[in-house]
């Protein structure tokens, strides 16, 4: 399967988001891939609010089964959340469980006015009633079970998509 170029997808995503961005809009990236994307989009869209990031390790629904995810990262939401328009940024939208956890975490910082979801790729097979507001690419057919699609960053900061099979 040929995976699309991240640079191109980022441009498409930014174009979709641009009409909806106001001076009050803030971006929050979901660790790890979503944070890399949010950094790029923050520049591309000229967002004035500081960039936020969250790691959903403490909010995951598989803690009882799989335990704490190793090496969780510090979350940081450096702006007033109450009544804010927030765009949550993630690399891949799949079951929707990460987004559910991220929404719960955001509400522990306050009551946002509106939350949108921006993703680079939607790979389908949702297990929760969650949809992206902005999406650069939708896979036409499901990936084989056990395969993992994620964003990678090399030593030079270049982003690429990687597909691995369990």
């Amino acid at each position, binding site marked *: 399967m040929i995976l699309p170029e991240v640079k191109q997808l980022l441009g498409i995503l930014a174009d979709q988001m641009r009409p909806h961005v106001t001076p009050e809009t803030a971006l929050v990236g979901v660790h790890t891939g979503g944070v890399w994307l949010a950094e790029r989009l923050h520049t591309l869209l000229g967002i004035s609010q500081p960039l936020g990031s969250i*790691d959903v*390790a*403490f*909010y995951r629904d598989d*803690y009882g089964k799989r*335990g*704490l995810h*190793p*090496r*969780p*990262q*510090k*979350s*940081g939401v450096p702006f007033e*959340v109450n009544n804010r328009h927030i765009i949550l940024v993630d690399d891949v939208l799949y079951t929707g469980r990460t987004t559910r956890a991220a929404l*719960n*975490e955001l*509400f*522990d*910082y*306050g009551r946002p006015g509106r939350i949108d979801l921006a993703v680079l790729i939607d790979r389908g097979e949702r297990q929760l009633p969650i949809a992206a507001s902005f999406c650069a690419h939708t896979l036409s057919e499901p990936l084989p079970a056990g395969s993992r699609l994620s964003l990678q960053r090399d030593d030079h900061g270049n982003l690429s998509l990687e597909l691995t099979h369990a």
Partner: protein
Amino acid sequence: MLNPQLNAAGRLKHLITLDGLPKDVLTEILDTAAPFTEVSEREVKKVPLLRGKSVFNIFFENSTRTRTTFEIAAKRLSADVINLNVATSSTNKGETLLDTVDNLCAMGADMFVMRHASSGAPYLLAQHLRATGRDHISVVNAGDGRHAHPTQGLLDMYTIRHFKQDFTRLTVAVVGDVLHSRVARSEIAALTTLGVPEVRVIGPKTLLPGNLEGLGVRVFHDMNEGLRGVDVVMMLRLQNERMQGALLPSSQEYFKFYGLTAEKLELAAKDAIVLHPGPMNRGVEIDSAVADGKHAVILPQVTFGIAVRMAVMSMLAAGN
């Protein structure tokens, strides 16, 4: 032999002592604690990790700070916390420790946080849980006799790493009543495991146990000599309540020779930090000018203690 604190997969299941815990496990706890420090700064200081779990604080010895910080940690993880005031409980009516524990298990306990005057009591509890097929319940040692106080040792390591970053370039002095101190034993174990090249112990002969050198530390009886050039000074509380017989002439004389004053601290590195596990005896082991001075990191220790205990509890509950 398998470390009784780890499960078959090598994950932390109980926390009883830092002695013998591998470096990567210690480092993992410190790394996991870092994101928990941020949780305590939020509008809602709570994450849902331990929702529905019951944590029993069973303290057979008085403690305010440790019990409170364990309680806060468990509550910020959304656990239900039950504090047992053992001084007024059935143990006073003659119930044995293990009978008390069996009753709490029957009430649906998921984790015990235990302090006991007898060294080894938390280990006994962990063995009992294993022997009776209740492996899913974790035990955290919150201080047992003179043996260990692992979460205090860990929060001290977190504090040192926060201010000094690299353990492998440090000279650290542990000062005071090492003989009665479970804190000192946990600190020494953690410092050596994490690669501190020089750990010093400073105290009068009557308050230092024998064979200290066997733990890989340098022993000093002269405080001025021992403090020279150190990066970290870890003070210990003079444990008056544990003193039996005449180990010291007087607390005034102790202060004269082993109390940390600004003058003595001058001998340490310019950017040295001073830790104290609390509660402090001002004017006995530490002078107020130092306790409230710019080198002291005693209150950050308390704040970091909550994050470290959150990390330990969430790793233990996951290790089952």
